């Protein structure tokens, strides 16, 4: 284990702003990328609509070398990303899209031609989301376009012209040789920029920020600073700063820890490093069970999934975090590490009570182990919210059920939004296991739920609705597992073609 020393630390944040190299020192590490753009660079194309990552007006594109000499691009919300997280990346904003001679980029041109802007305030954000789609080769499918644009709110157009622009721009090739060469050159420059550069350590009067590059370094830093705020995607922590006006000191960022960014798959499990974003975990988890894929598709927005991590979703202990109920239903475990000591904890035991988790200061979530369902185990998850996309869940039900010879051999029912933590409905499970999977058992399971949960009323849903839906989700599970021809889904791949 290496203790970082002043020799292998550096104070300057290095990144490319478009094609221009930046090396920033003496910057408040809590400054958001959006404030940096608007106040320091005086680039005002990127807008602030909400300062909490929900409207997308501040969408920018981050580029990083993908390790194969190419560039990988993703959209993020600049309003909740801190400037030091730009280290080693390319930051692209709406100002970078026009050609050298001043002509509009194809995605910009498409937006003009389809009348895709009215008031224009959300437009730069949409343009950047469209640009990211263009960089990745374009999309024609409405579902894919919806997913790419779910994090960009428009109050004027009703989206039709923007969808049309996405289709139009998607048809224009992004991949010519000159463009590929340009991207490869950027990848090389970025790699060189931070190669052998040491750990980024910003020590500013307003607060400190460390970005270790290995998990050993991270473990050591956390032992040294047990009260540090661990920052991953910043999709929650960012709001502590922009909305609660908190000062965080120090911040330890795990997004640059290379060995926490891997997804590995064995015959029996998928292991997700704590630094893996939802976007990167999506495919592997979708292969574990299609409903987890669908669930992750509906977490936040593309921008949020490009930043937020599965590990962070667990570590922050939200009572309505979307992945924990699903992962608990599958029997997931997490690996907690302090210094060089690791321990495995079943995920369900990690959540102790509201705001309290089984994690001691200095300890961090290193990885999540998601077992693949045993043969015959059926997994279903249902996220219920006011809006399908980019909404925080009112009730989430995740179920793993195995039926053998007409009887329930195994059953896990886990809910989010029903208690202070994601929680198994053990009485409900007990009412089902070993019974015939029939309407009588379903009724018993529903009655048991009323016994074990006392949900609360808030702006997302009343306690009565939460309970009624929690019970009805058992009905939905029953129908889907016993009468699969009946249409039960409004969205997602399993949505009935009705």
């Amino acid at each position, binding site marked *: 284990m290496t203790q970082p020393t002043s020799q292998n630390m550096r104070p300057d944040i290095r990144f490319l702003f478009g094609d221009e190299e930046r090396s920033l020192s003496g910057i408040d590490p809590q400054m958001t990328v959006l404030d940096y753009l608007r106040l320091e660079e005086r680039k005002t194309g990127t807008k602030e609509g909400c300062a909490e990552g929900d409207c997308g007006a501040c969408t920018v594109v981050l580029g990083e070398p993908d390790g194969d000499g190419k560039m990988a691009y993703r959209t993020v919300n600049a309003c909740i990303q801190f400037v030091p997280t730009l280290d080693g990346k390319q930051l692209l904003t709406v100002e970078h899209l026009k050609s050298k001679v001043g002509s509009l980029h194809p995605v*910009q041109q498409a937006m003009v031609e389809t009348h895709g802007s009215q008031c224009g305030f959300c437009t730069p954000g949409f343009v950047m989301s469209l640009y990211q789609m263009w960089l990745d080769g374009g999309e024609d499918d409405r579902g894919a376009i919806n997913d790419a644009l779910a994090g960009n709110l428009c109050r*004027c157009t009703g989206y039709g012209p923007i969808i049309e622009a996405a289709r139009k721009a998607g048809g224009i090739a992004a991949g010519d040789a000159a463009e590929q060469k340009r991207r490869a050159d950027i990848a090389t420059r970025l790699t060189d920029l931070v190669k052998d550069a040491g750990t980024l350590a910003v020590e500013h009067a307003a607060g400190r920020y460390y970005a270790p590059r290995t998990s050993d370094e991270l473990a050591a830093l956390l032992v040294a600073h047990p009260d540090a705020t661990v920052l991953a995607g910043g999709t929650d922590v960012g709001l502590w700063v922009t909305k609660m006006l908190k000062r965080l000191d120090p911040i330890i960022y795990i997004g640059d820890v290379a060995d926490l960014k891997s997804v590995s798959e064995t015959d029996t499990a998928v292991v997700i490093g704590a630094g893996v974003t939802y976007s990167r975990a999506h495919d592997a988890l979708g292969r574990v069970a299609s409903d987890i894929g669908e669930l992750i598709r509906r977490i936040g927005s593309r921008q949020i999934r490009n930043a937020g991590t599965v590990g962070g979703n667990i570590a922050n202990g939200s009572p309505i975090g979307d992945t924990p109920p699903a992962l608990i239903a599958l029997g997931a475990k997490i690996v907690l590490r302090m210094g060089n000591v690791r321990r495995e904890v079943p995920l369900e035991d990690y959540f102790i009570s509201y705001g309290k988790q089984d994690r001691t200061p200095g300890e961090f979530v290193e990885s999540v182990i998601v077992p693949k369902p045993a043969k015959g185990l059926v997994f279903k998850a249902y996220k219920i919210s006011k809006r399908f996309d980019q909404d925080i869940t009112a009730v989430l039900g995740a179920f793993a059920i195995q039926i053998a010879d007409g009887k329930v051999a195994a059953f896990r029912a886990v809910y989010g939004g029903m208690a202070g933590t994601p929680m198994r409905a053990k009485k409900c499970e007990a009412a089902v296991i070993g019974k015939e999977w029939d309407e009588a058992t379903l009724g018993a399971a529903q009655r048991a739920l009323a016994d074990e949960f006392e949900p609360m009323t808030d702006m997302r849903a009343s306690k009565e609705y939460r309970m009624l839906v929690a019970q009805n989700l058992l009905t*939905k599970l029953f129908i889907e597992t016993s009468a699969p021809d009946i249409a039960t889904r409004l969205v997602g791949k399993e949505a009935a073609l009705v």
Partner: protein
Amino acid sequence: MSDQAAYNQTDDLIEPTAGLSGGVRTPSKHDSGPKHVAGEAVYIDDIIEPFGTLHLAPGSANIAHGKITKMDLSKVRSAPGVVCVLTSDDVPGVNDVSPAHTHDEPVLPDGVVQFYGQPVFCVAAETRAQARHAAKLAEIEYEELPAALSVDEALEKQLFVAPPHVMKQGDAASALAKAKHRRSARMEIGGQDHFYLEGQISLAVPQEDGDVLLHCSTQHPSEVQHNIANVLGRPANAVTVEVRRMGGGFGGKETQASQWAALAAIVAVKTGRPAKFRLDRDDDMVMTGKRHDFIVDYDVGFDDDGRICGLDIQYAANCGFSADLSAAIADRAMFHTDNAYYLGDVEIRSYRCKTNLVSNTAFRGFGGPQGMVAIERIIDEIAMTVGRDPLDVRMANYYGTDDRNTTPYHMVVEDNVLGELTDDILKSSDYRTRRAAIEAFNSESPVLKKGLSITPVKFGISFTTSFLNQAGALIHVYQDGSVHLNHGGTEMGQGLFIKVAQVVAEEFQIDLDQIKITATNTGKVPNTSATAASSGADMNGMAARDAAMTIKNRLISFAAEKYGVAEAAVRFVPGKVIVGDQAELSFAEVIKQAYLARVSLSATGYYATPKIHYDRENASGRPFYYFAYGMACSEVLIDTLTGENKVTRVDIIHDVGRSLNPAIDRGQIEGGFIQGMGWLTTEELWWDDKGSLRTHAPSTYKIPACSDRPEDFRMELWASGRNVEKTIHRSKAVGEPPLMLSISVHRAIADAIASVGDHKVIPALNTPATPEAILYAVADVAKQMMTDAGQKMSAAGE
């Protein structure tokens, strides 16, 4: 050529003028489009800040109603970067920003807090972050007073911001007594946050003599000017307000900009430094008004065909703590009680309830949507009661052309196109066939249910406060023939500026790119009305045309005299002026010659809407110049286990008269529809029991997202559309009317819910139809069916 003759020349123009780029009827692109997409369009927060600009942040109350007993701001004052802290004592003039000078909206309250989140003081600091941090450091104590947090509470205590109002035709009570069928019920209608993407913002720049230049994101620069002059204790000519564009308005920047503008102006005058006030999103949602939530109680009588014969309806609007525009908004709800239907004997009562909540304000439709969503629910309930298709009951109740054509406010509907529009949408939507297909689907699908509904829109165009129906414009033509265009309307994305520019291009017969569109500025065109009531293009288009015609007529006189031809022989054709058989000059050449001949090339224009008059006391007259019409057919799918729902197909035919710009109009229709759909489905405002709004950010307040836009969305501008009134090129206003096309979504959801009870039990669906509201309605219908079935069984048993 007389004005009227000139008018008639293009009155019937259907196709764009050949050879002219960007005249009327062309789908010209939004003038700011290329700037929007490049991030180059300048909003107020993008203006390069003048040296030394201060930044403001509000400090707010955390009770709904009470006296301030102690306000210790010493920690705020000593916080890093703080330059000054304002309380009500620092208002130099009148401490009021109420739009109608009702003196009930203080810039900062003087001792009494009236809603949770009300700003009670304000900090100016070197940076915005410093101001926001400092604002958290106040120590304030209160003596709490009883707070009315609901309409029912206000009704019970008779708390009103304006007197109740009644509108009557015939004798509703006796008509109801005689009616064969009667139904009475209550409907609750939710409010709506504007969620303009650009929040409230003002930048005040101090000028000499203590004057102020305000860059303000507002739909009503003149009102901001007058309010700020009052607040500063200065005449109106000491304040100039400018706005190039807003990042969305929707009514939310009609009156709501003044408070922040006033505070910025006070700081600018007090410190001599520029001052910017940009509200954080959460503060904006907590501190600024929204669409009014309503409670509607009705008692309707009808015959076997479902024809209405008597309606008694009472509206209670939640106005919040002050009057704002609530009286006019509540009036417009009354004006739209009929929507498309002849109501005969009707009595409409309206209460304007005062509550300890943020003061509600204008929002696209301005009360009209609340009136219309209620009558559409009533029609569906009648249809279920008499067992007819709801569309047939709608048609049975439509206004007639020769009889059954007077509104509850005694205006004759002269431009009724409801029948023709209905014929057209029946065809384009294939309604009857789909109705049958949906019934078949529902009988086979136990969990997911479909619903279908066609609803009409008839929306009155004009400010119902008649004197507001006036507009001004200013046009300069420079020596090179380039044109500077200015008018009193504001651009909030709706495409007003491009439409007015097209009108001017058409008048001068010059290409659109010769016209410079400029920022609205109270120093150029004074005493303007708000860009509101869908009136922007109607009024400013006419005023700009008037200005252009003044200059054009001068040019005609000049050319006729100079070349010795009759005035009638001077013709403006694309890019050119033909002077009889004497000359053919480019526009620029004519201008140059006119300048040298000392002809004025600058003119103001003015327009006042004709024909309108209204006697409010007797609720009688012609408040509207004309009506805008539309039809929508929506199909939805609901999940009866969760209440989740999805709009699967929408067909719209909307009457924009003869469109000035079909592309802009389509944008207004689709955008308005989706915004209305949000109001009626996902957008729920939720206050806790302390009166604190808990849905104050996009994380908790859900406007439609991209995937909510129906996959199958078919929209047509009505091919037969033409305005019988002499509006600007016979177009019709389009800003607000399409919002109410979305009522078809709410009614289709109710239809899907009713299918659970075989359309025998009326679902009591309020708005918004959230998954929770839908699931409860489904559960109620199912329960009622069980009860009915139980009763039948026991009756059979006897």
